[in-house]
């Protein structure tokens, strides 16, 4: 995995700090060309991986990248599925089974439709899971998708239910059908590591909040830093700026000091911001070659200005 991954929250009005900023971003990025412009800026800055939800609008980015293989020779997608609001709204409207039925393939390929109907009738969860994964992956056909993620709402729901088998189903299908590595996004990293281990998923790619504030690191700051030190997994840090509560330099410096973090995912809306983040990471990541420094205690939320 690349050291820096480019995220997509900013394109879809997801902003954990401010609803006003979120709205301004949805306005700015409502034309997919505005999104592609920023992705291009990231690519030109050497950030080659786009970690994105399977939001319908991403299909436009996929089409664009497919249309110019020469320009995007090194471009990689890390799809994150599913786009949860799509399903949550469908459950409100159609109920649980109705929603599943809606997202299973229904037209076109008769055998896929049959597979869906049969899987649903036989309570074949593995079958349903693989069909939904295939439906979500359709837009990425012919593109590089070396890691495929399960989104945190789904991961953490399954984790809470104790439905750990679903992680194995996801991992198996992603490996066998897409020759990709499975990835898991979570807000409960230490607990998830136990669950993944219990179903035999070794050295998993796990993306979670890792920031100096301890913001949304459930299970506790100590458990996270302990896991980074001792457990065998490939960590991706997200929300390193804690939604803007920490200055960029302080945030990046701290994250780069933590052991065993393989990548950082970040969002930005301008080339300048992308560049300055990349430069900060370049600067502080170098120090990782030095012996691991002790983990510093979190700054208390109250002390942030």
């Amino acid at each position, binding site marked *: 995995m690349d050291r820096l991954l480019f995220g997509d929250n900013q394109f879809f009005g997801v902003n*954990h700090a*401010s609803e006003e900023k979120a709205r301004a971003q949805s306005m700015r990025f409502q034309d997919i060309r505005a999104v592609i412009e920023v992705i291009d800026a990231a690519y030109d800055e050497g950030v080659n991986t786009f970690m994105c939800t399977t939001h319908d609008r991403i299909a436009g980015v996929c089409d664009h990248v497919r249309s110019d293989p020469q320009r995007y020779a090194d471009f990689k997608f890390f799809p994150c599925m599913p786009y949860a609001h799509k399903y949550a709204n469908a459950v409100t409207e159609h109920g649980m089974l109705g929603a599943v039925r809606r997202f299973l393939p229904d037209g076109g390929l008769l055998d896929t439709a049959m597979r869906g109907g049969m899987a649903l009738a036989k309570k074949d969860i593995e079958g349903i899971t693989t069909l939904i994964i295939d439906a979500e992956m359709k837009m990425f056909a012919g593109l590089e998708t070396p890691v495929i993620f399960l989104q945190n709402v789904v991961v953490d*729901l399954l984790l809470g239910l104790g439905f750990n088998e679903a992680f194995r189903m996801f991992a198996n299908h992603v490996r066998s059908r897409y020759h990709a590595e499975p990835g898991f996004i979570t807000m*409960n990293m230490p607990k998830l590591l136990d669950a993944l281990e219990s179903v035999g998923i070794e050295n998993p790619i796990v993306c979670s909040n890792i920031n100096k504030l301890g913001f949304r690191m459930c*299970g506790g700051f100590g458990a996270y830093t302990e896991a980074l030190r001792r457990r065998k997994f490939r960590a991706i840090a997200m929300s390193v700026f*804690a939604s803007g509560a920490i200055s960029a330099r302080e945030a990046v410096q701290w994250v780069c000091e933590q052991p065993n973090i393989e990548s950082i995912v970040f969002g930005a809306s301008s080339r300048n911001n992308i560049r300055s983040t990349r430069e900060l990471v370049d600067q502080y990541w170098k120090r990782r070659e030095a012996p691991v420094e002790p983990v510093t205690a979190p700054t208390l939320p109250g002390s942030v200005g």
Partner: protein
Amino acid sequence: MLKLAVVGLGKMGLSHLAIINAHPGVRVAAVCDPASYVLDVLNKYTGVTTFTDFDDMMRRTELDAVLVATPSSMHAKMVRKALEAGKHVFCEKPLTLDPRESEELSRLAAERGLVNQVGYHYRFVGTFQEVKRLLDAKVIGDVTHIQAEAYGPVVLKPKGGTWRSQRAAGGGCLYDYAAHPLNLVQWYFGMPRGVGGTVLGSVFSSETDDEVFTTLYFDGGRSAQLSVNWSDESCRKMSTKITVWGTAGRITADRQEVHAYFRDTAKLLPGYREGWNTRNITQLTEDVWFYVRGEEYSAQLDYFVRCIEENESDNVNSFATAAATDRVIAMMVADAQRGAGITEQSELPAPVRKRRGLMALFGK
């Protein structure tokens, strides 16, 4: 270890189940839902004990507490049975569709000394809690008005197949969406003495409301207005906003931020200044042990568990406070049926005549 059952495995029920099942102090002893499909899958993959019949579950399972997340019209019966069996109860909102029933359940829970809580999770959101703290400290002086808004993309076309599309079953924007901001207004202002100008409008739904507007009248000339619409695609998800005006300033809060403007007459709390202040949710959120979809959902269930452990039945979001919200909802339904208070045909009182001439100029 607290033994708990989750009843109703729809969207809220499953989310509650995931959160409470991860609680270190709780063992989920049973789940109950009429849909055997979901039950079979859960039982097969998580090993949880399942029931399709509530009474059967109550008879055959040793329980301390019951979490009710069934369609709203079924709450009353199940909550009553659980209380009568001596179980602590967490119930999804609204408590019931009949305020008299809600008040009875509240009395029953109090008599039995049982913890009784309703899922108005906004009272566990850091920003809305901060508004409460500022109002309790009278920072903005005498409060005159609250505006409470909620918008979101739930019903965006005419068809819908679940109980949520029928008002008789407790579906609709009023019960499902507007209850939340209304409950917040009541947290801040208490019980209104009246409502007026209520509109329960349909945008797409044929059997229930999609937009809700009303004015709430409180003692001392205070008022609040509610503006809610769940057919608003411009919001990515439910977006709730509270604005409070007082003699010494104004406070606005949503899920992410508190913006407060304090005049020089404001009684400032430590950390705040005259003029504009911003507080972000990252500063106001307390850690939770497990996260699925927002700290507040975890925090309210942890609070419920702690109230049981500490034998505290005077809790936040008690049945009594939820019953007060159910009462205002009923008042709004009645008010909406009356329609416009003053119509084009209404006989209007004659305007007070102004005095003319020199005397008026001198104000006499």
